[in-house]
């Protein structure tokens, strides 16, 4: 136990007692059963980095733990069969649903879900003879469902990394090369025009390289939060509403922040292209407007196709015709 935890022992005990009393189904657990888990969580999130943490902070942290979920997991860890039944019955759908959405097919989803349950139950024993289970990582800070989804996602990505040959690629690959190659191989060909003229082809590649480098630098210069917003929005296709919820602000605020980030990136890209690559103002404007125009057309086509597909699907599904 850390010195901070020892210092606030009474506060911690009282808070744990409240956790047990808050739980609708404490599964016969007592404060002592939860103490080790709660202290571990405290060290991880509160006292680990800050030795001078106050009692109020510790109290607030413990009071915000999810009592029922924590009691269920601790009971499972302690070998409570009833708790296991409840866990599987209540959360098997969550695990399978997450696995299905993340996997390419049902077979993979079934495998993934089975792996998750195996890891949750524990396959190996520690030196004390106890099963080493993933359940021991659950702190009760977030919801049990959310934690299970994160576990599914993490395991899926780690499995993918193990299987994927792409893990072996060099990590310092240049950002701009990716953009260039992807434009040749992906469906995005129409965005970047290609010419048979070698001179023009070289010029186009050089242009893309310059822009890629400038964009990479511009993104690197952003603040962490701005960078995360930008990546979640553009690279992971998350909605502004969800991004805002994660970072603790309203969708409108997320939207304003994104607009500000775009402005910063434009300024940086223009500055880098001018100062480091010798572009002039008209060249920058022309390239950006052409890119926007071509991508805009693609997006319109894609939207029209999606709308049409949705209509056809709906017609067949409802049997109107």
């Amino acid at each position, binding site marked *: 136990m850390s010195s901070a935890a020892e210092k606030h022992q009474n506060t911690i005990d009282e808070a744990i007692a409240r956790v047990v009393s808050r739980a609708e189904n404490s599964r016969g657990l007592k404060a002592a059963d939860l103490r080790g888990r709660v202290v571990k969580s405290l060290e991880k999130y509160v006292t680990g980095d800050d030795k001078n943490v106050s009692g109020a902070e510790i109290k607030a942290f413990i009071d915000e733990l999810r009592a029922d979920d924590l009691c269920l997991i601790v009971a499972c860890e302690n070998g409570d069969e009833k708790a296991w039944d409840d866990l599987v019955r209540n959360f098997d759908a969550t695990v399978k*649903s997450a696995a299905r959405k993340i996997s390419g097919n049902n077979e993979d989803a079934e495998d993934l879900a089975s792996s998750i349950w195996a890891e949750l139950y524990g396959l190996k024993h520690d030196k004390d003879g106890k099963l080493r289970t993933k359940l021991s990582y659950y702190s009760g800070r977030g919801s049990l469902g959310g934690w299970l989804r994160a576990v599914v996602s993490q395991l899926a990505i780690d499995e993918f990394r193990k299987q994927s040959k792409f893990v072996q690629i060099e990590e310092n690959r240049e950002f701009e090369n990716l953009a260039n190659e992807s434009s040749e191989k992906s469906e995005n060909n129409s965005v970047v025009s290609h010419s048979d003229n070698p001179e023009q082809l070289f010029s186009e590649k050089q242009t893309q390289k310059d822009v890629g480098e400038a964009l990479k630098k511009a993104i690197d210069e952003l603040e962490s939060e701005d960078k995360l917003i930008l990546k979640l929005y553009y690279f992971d296709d998350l909605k502004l509403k969800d991004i805002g919820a994660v970072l603790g602000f309203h969708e409108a605020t997320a939207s304003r922040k994104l607009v500000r980030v775009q402005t910063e990136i434009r300024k940086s890209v223009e500055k880098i292209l001018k100062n480091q690559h010798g572009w002039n103002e008209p060249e920058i404007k022309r390239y950006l407007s052409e890119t926007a125009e071509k991508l805009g057309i693609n997006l319109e086509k894609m939207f029209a196709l999606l709308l049409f597909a949705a209509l056809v699907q709906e017609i067949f599904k409802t049997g109107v015709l």
Partner: protein
Amino acid sequence: MIEGFDKEIDALLRQTAKGETAFAETNPDSRFKIPKSKIQNPKSKIHPDADEISAFAENALPEKLKPKYTAHFAECDRCRKILSNTITLNSEAETVPAFSVAATPKIAVIKSIPWYRRLFAFPNAAYAMGALVVLFGGFLAFTLLQNVNNSQSSEVSVISESQPRQGGPSAESEPDFSPNTMSNMSVTSTDSVSNSAMSNSGSVNMSNSSTMPSVVSNAAAQRTNANLSMANTNLLKKESPLNEVEREKDLTQTKPSAPTAADSAAGSVAENQSVSSKQINELPRNDDKAKIAQAAPSPSVETLPLNGRNMSELKSARAKKSDSNAGESRSVSGRNFTRKDGVWYDSAYNGQSTTNISRGSNEYQKLDSGLRSIAENLSGTIVVVWKSKAYRIQ
């Protein structure tokens, strides 16, 4: 669209993002779109576990720790990918709770269907289509009805415009004594009369029947009643002196070949309207009339040379035609109506444009009670002149 959104930078970033994920996709259905660049960031040695990621995704981490994790997720694509997957799964789970799928599948399905797709779902689509069909059918019927009415009106106007200028055998061979053509013929005869008083016609005040020159009075005598003469006066009022000159020329040219038009015009009136003719002729004449008489001594209508036939002959011929062609007549509220092609025409109607009014409509209710009384006494479509304005009530 977000206000102030930079479309160009947005396009550039989307293009770049596509390039980033393009290589990572070995399984197109998979969500494991980890960019091959920076799968593991060298700067971030210790990665957050599932508990930290889920707590961050639910904004459940202590405020103090947020910047640390934000910085890591901003740099580490692998952890960011796990985070974004978790966020997406959480978001989808909120929309359709996993446990509810098994327990209440129907509700879950309904909730998962977005509003714009529900619009097309049965039975909404069926109701909407049915309503559209009814609306469209109603619209077609209404348009058809309107077209039928318009075509009737246009026939009337075509006749009234073309016949005064018609000459020759065609006019003679098919004399029409409908109220429309009767009025036209009257105009023709009036024009022929005014021919003699041409020099003064521009200065004559036509709005007052008491100051009407004798030639006009004579023409008005051909009307079936006083209202008819008023209508004719209105018609004359519209004629500019220049038009009268042109029409005079036309008439002069057509006279040799179109005697029957004038014949019939005079003839039809002669029988019925000798009284009104007298009344108008007996009206006191003012100075204007005297001047007109001096300037152009007007011969009586009866004595006008019309291709060798005088007005009396024309009147008698017209009366004969009128007798043979006249349809059912009725008198309502002191007005005479003649039925032609299923439409009751006011004898005062002389082909002017009509205001179409449907029975029972708001416009109909706003009409004068006298006019409505006429409309209620005659079934079907009626064309009536009320306060110098023509109405078609159907």
